[in-house]
């Protein structure tokens, strides 16, 4: 039998072709975007669009970073104690509580946006502000931080905490010196997911943002709506994509892939 055409070889070729086809489907739109962002006014190759990104769009990227980082900090402050309480203590209704806390993940962004506008404006009499926007992001994204943290804590044998306690560590010392470092990868995975979601969120932002804040995704949306798709807008979109991509790469570099299992990133 001809070795070149053995069944095994044919399956090999077919599966490779399949993988490359899928990859192409995913990469194509992004490649088109990159190509468009590198096009000058007369259709020639040009880098000037990116100069524009770091000129006129700096403020938008700045807001996006600022909102993301503040959201991450608040998420950390909420998720760490919540995860600890959910994993290390037993009380009735624990699983129900966790299900409730994960609920924002299953609420459509538009519904969340309207709900938050109602709550902020009519219940709390808050006018839209930067903190309102940050809190809205927290509501929508903290389950992304909570879930990996809960998983990491469940995987951490309690004996480390008991050992620390017996050696004379206080609760706080046990958290800071033993628990948090050991669940670091879990927390890292949560922060990464949150960052990517919040950095690129625009629908909820549209609902609750004050007029003086325009984040990068909102700017892209506005520009496309008012001016059509310009190469400069494409350049901004490419930059946002690259930032998200770098965040994932950084995470892989530090922790490897295992902490992202079960998330939609892997």
């Amino acid at each position, binding site marked *: 039998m001809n070795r070149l055409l053995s069944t095994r070889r044919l399956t090999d070729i077919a599966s490779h072709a399949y993988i490359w086809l899928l990859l192409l489907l995913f990469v194509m739109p992004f490649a088109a975007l990159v190509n468009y962002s590198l096009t000058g006014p007369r259709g020639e190759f040009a880098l000037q669009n990116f100069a524009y990104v770091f000129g006129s769009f700096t403020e938008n990227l700045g807001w996006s970073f600022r909102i993301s980082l503040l959201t991450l900090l608040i998420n950390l402050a909420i998720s760490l104690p919540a995860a600890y309480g959910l994993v290390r203590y037993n009380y009735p209704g624990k699983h129900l509580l966790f299900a409730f806390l994960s609920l924002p993940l299953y609420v459509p962004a538009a519904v969340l946006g309207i709900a938050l506008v109602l709550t902020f404006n009519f219940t709390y009499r808050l006018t839209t502000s930067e903190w309102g926007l940050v809190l809205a992001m927290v509501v929508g994204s903290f389950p992304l931080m909570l879930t990996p943290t809960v998983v990491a804590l469940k995987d951490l044998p309690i*004996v480390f905490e*008991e*050992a620390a*306690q*017996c*050696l*004379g*560590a206080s609760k706080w010392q046990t958290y800071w010196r033993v628990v948090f470092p050991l669940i670091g990868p879990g927390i890292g995975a949560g922060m990464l997911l949150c960052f990517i979601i919040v950095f690129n969120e625009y629908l909820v932002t549209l609902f609750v943002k004050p007029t003086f804040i325009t984040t990068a995704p909102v700017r892209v949306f506005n520009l496309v709506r008012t001016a059509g798709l310009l190469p400069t807008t494409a350049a901004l979109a490419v930059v946002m994509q690259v930032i998200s991509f770098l965040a994932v790469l950084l995470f892989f570099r530090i922790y490897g892939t295992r902490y992202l299992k079960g998330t939609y990133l892997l």
Partner: protein
Amino acid sequence: MSSVRLDGITKRYGHTLAVEDISLNIAEREFVTLLGPSGCGKTTLLRIIAGLIEPTAGRIYFDQQDVTYLSPRARNIGFVFQQPALFPHLSVADNVGFGLSVKGVRKDVIAKRVEDMLALVGLSGYGKRMPAQLSGGQQQRVALARVLATDPRVLLFDEPLSALDRNLRETLKYSILDLQRKTGKTAIYVTHDQTEAFAISDRIVVMNAGRIEQIGTQMDIYLHPATPFVAEFIGANNSLSGVVTSVQEGEVTVDADGLRIHCRPHSAFREGDAVLGYIRPENIALLNDKDDHDVHHIGYINVFDGVLDRVIFEGATAQVRVNVNGRELRVDVSGAQRLTLSRRGGRVRIGFNDVTLIPKPA
């Protein structure tokens, strides 16, 4: 170094009693082992002493101090777990120095103490390594150094050798004993392995079903088990059940289904008492035919003829089953005799003196 006193310790989980009314005094510098099958409550008791579990009732005293409701942190104990439980993100030195570091001791003082402790457990120069770079035995040594570094009042061990392989267990159990002697710490050690308990303890507490069955030295427990459980749990044993038929000058004769057994028990029995008798396989001798003319001359008060049922050669010893009037007795043979045993079916004569008698529980 503290004495430890338990007074009526009880732990209840719902309707199950994990530990029931345990009172125990442990002297300063004493090495006491809690020995029992899994699920007997020994680990629960140890964790109660450590403060990791709060008892339902009872009091714990270190010296005169009532520590019942103190956190583990305030008790100043050294707890060695079944797993080394070294903090994987800290170096060996940082692990050993952890207890001092959380108390805010100065860095140079900690460094000196860490060096001393690592030298004590024979791991000088390992300070910079990470726990994952050490073998299981080395990790458990570091765990020992880590608890000793804080100079605890009491050392608590929860089956610290059970995760290690056999040779390592052998050497490490003596290292633990050495360290305890050198540092003069009071130690409480939990194990289900009786050879381990016998090798290292000053006293052994045999536990079963949440209760103490017997407290005593190795000899006490081996020679004079107080309850049927202890007699059956410690070593292998041939058990017989019978009735006392005569008592004369401290010699008691028991009729166990037609087998007349003479013994010299420690406690008093009366005619008609229902008793359990235990004869250790290693205390039964296989006698040669030449010995058969004068029973008392060869020094055995019980001599029986039987048939060799089975011989299991185990290396250092041979396990022999002898059928005496339809009753199978196990005899452990050591020395040169084990090498010349006929395989089976031969007639043999056995002799023994030591029989443990325990009143039959109602």
